[in-house]
């Protein structure tokens, strides 16, 4: 058990080092001289004086050997200092933190909706496999997986904002502006959660302890509520964590469409504006977070599931 934890921890550290190295090398990989890029971003499209490039190089310490620069950069990055945005000139750390909070709120709302629909739906279709409810659930979830969010989003805006005028079409103020984007984002996780909880519940309902509960005189509904859901929800918990990690940066399209100042839009705008510090900061944060969440999800799974835990001990 502790060996596994230690191993996981070492892998996590190794990953973070690799990621930080990749992020550090971003300006070097894109070809061209990073100092030139910086000077260019400051003076706009005016002609660049080679002497000022060299002054800037010394000033920024970019004339030092690469590994010294990396260690220095890493040291500040660990302290949350990723430098200043080329565009807004404000420090990257707080900017990323603000965006993360927004994306986290959005992702949790979307996953909340998904979970609220998927768990009952999955449970019901597992209780009556092959019956109408199961067929309908399967059909609906198949359909949801194939819906592109950049199609559903403008259509939802058209209906709810432009025709009915009951919800804002974009922006980030108040719960009302959260409804449409969360709804759009919830479709795909909803489909996956339903399928996973259905499969898990079908397994659970065949377990001996369910038969035991039934034979003690509990009816089907009581059995499912008291014994089934707790056990059937376990794979969904893991999946929830994975989706949370995925949505933190992966909701780019929805954030751009609804003008939500989250992580996805931060990254998108950094790419469009070639804003290297923001790009580095958000890349490190997003990847580190998703790896961390995944490791935690694995740990949670092992803690929740005695069978796995015992297998790991022996």
């Amino acid at each position, binding site marked *: 058990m502790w060996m596994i934890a230690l191993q996981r921890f070492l892998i996590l550290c190794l990953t973070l080092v690799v990621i930080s190295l990749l992020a550090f090398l971003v300006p070097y990989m894109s070809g061209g001289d990073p100092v030139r890029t910086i000077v260019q971003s400051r003076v706009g499209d005016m002609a660049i004086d080679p002497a000022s490039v060299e002054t800037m190089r010394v000033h920024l310490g970019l004339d030092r050997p690469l590994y010294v620069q990396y260690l220095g950069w890493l040291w500040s990055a660990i302290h949350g200092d990723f430098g200043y945005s080329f565009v807004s000139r404000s420090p990257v750390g707080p900017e990323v933190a603000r965006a993360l909070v927004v994306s986290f709120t959005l992702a949790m709302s979307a996953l909340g909706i998904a979970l609220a629909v998927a768990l009952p739906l999955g449970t019901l279709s597992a209780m009556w496999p092959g019956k109408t409810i199961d067929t309908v659930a399967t059909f609906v979830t198949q359909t949801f997986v194939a819906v592109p*969010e950049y*199609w559903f989003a403008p259509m939802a805006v058209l209906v709810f904002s432009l025709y009915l005028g009951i919800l804002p079409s974009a922006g980030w103020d108040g719960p009302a502006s959260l409804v449409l984007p969360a709804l759009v984002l919830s479709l795909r996780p909803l489909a996956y959660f339903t399928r996973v909880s259905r499969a898990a519940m079908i397994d659970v309902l065949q377990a001996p302890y369910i038969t035991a509960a039934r034979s003690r005189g509990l009816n089907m509904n009581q059995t499912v509520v008291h014994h089934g859901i707790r056990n059937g929800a376990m794979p969904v918990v893991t999946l929830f964590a994975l989706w949370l990690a995925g949505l933190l940066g992966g909701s780019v399209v929805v954030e*751009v469409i609804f003008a939500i100042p989250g992580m996805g839009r931060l990254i998108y705008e950094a790419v469009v504006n070639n804003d290297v510090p923001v790009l580095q900061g958000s890349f490190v944060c*997003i990847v580190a977070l998703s790896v961390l969440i995944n490791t935690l999800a694995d740990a949670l799974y092992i803690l929740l599931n005695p069978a796995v835990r015992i297998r790991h001990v022996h």
Partner: protein
Amino acid sequence: MSINHLAPSAPTILEPARSTEPSSVAQAIRFIRQRHWSFAVGSLLFLTIAVLLIISPWIIPHDPSAQSLLRRLAGPSVQHWLGTDHLGRDLLSRLLIGGRFSVVIAAVTLILGAVIGTLLGVISARTGGLTDEIIMRVVDLLISFPDVIVAIFMIAIFGPGYGTLIASLTIVGWTPFARMARGLTLEINSREYIKAAEVLGCTKTFIIFRHVIPNAIRPIAAISFLRFGHKLITVGGLSFLGLGVQPPNADWALMLAESQPFVERAPLLVFAPGLAIFLTALSVTWIGQGLEMKGRNASKAAQ
């Protein structure tokens, strides 16, 4: 991410590889009839879309990039069956052409990912030890990366282009296949016929290509079909953001992005390309679902 978590770690569809009998139409019909209805419907829908996309350069009524500012945002007419976009380009022609890039890119990344992932997964399971450990830890790591983010970063660094697009989506895309192929191989490894082959002195490579891969191919195919929709939507999303297929090429997601400001005046401009992506993704998902469903029943019958 995500679909791999649906895939059973010890998949159920493990039939011995059949030698290919002389194929006939009757056999094909039997194959389809044995499957869930969604397989037939999905195949039919996908074939229709694929044929339309292939022959589109010869059947489109107008030049898809010919602009006519006098006919901006025109409604459906005899000349332009579905109307025109904000630059007066014929919507129907652009729709027929518009799936070619994204469907091909999605297919290529998927096939690359499936081949690389399957090979690495099989090698991982057959070799074991340190190789297995390294490959699976890399999978654990990459599988948690959001694929859109990886793609965006790679495009940011290397610039947009089909090569970057395909490479960036393959880097993350092979991992679920590796995990699945490894699970399948471990199961196949315990079969009698593998032991028989080993006793007979067959080489590792021979066993992998003659016994393991043919037996693992069907469940992997089912997952590939299920993942195609996801890939198509991801490629579309990148094009939507201006990082995938570049204008003036006609592309469904790009058309959707360009028409967004006009959604209130001409909803069809946004609705139609989205519907095209949706139907393509749905048809392939149905094929995958049909393949998987039959597998489930077949294994139940065999037990």
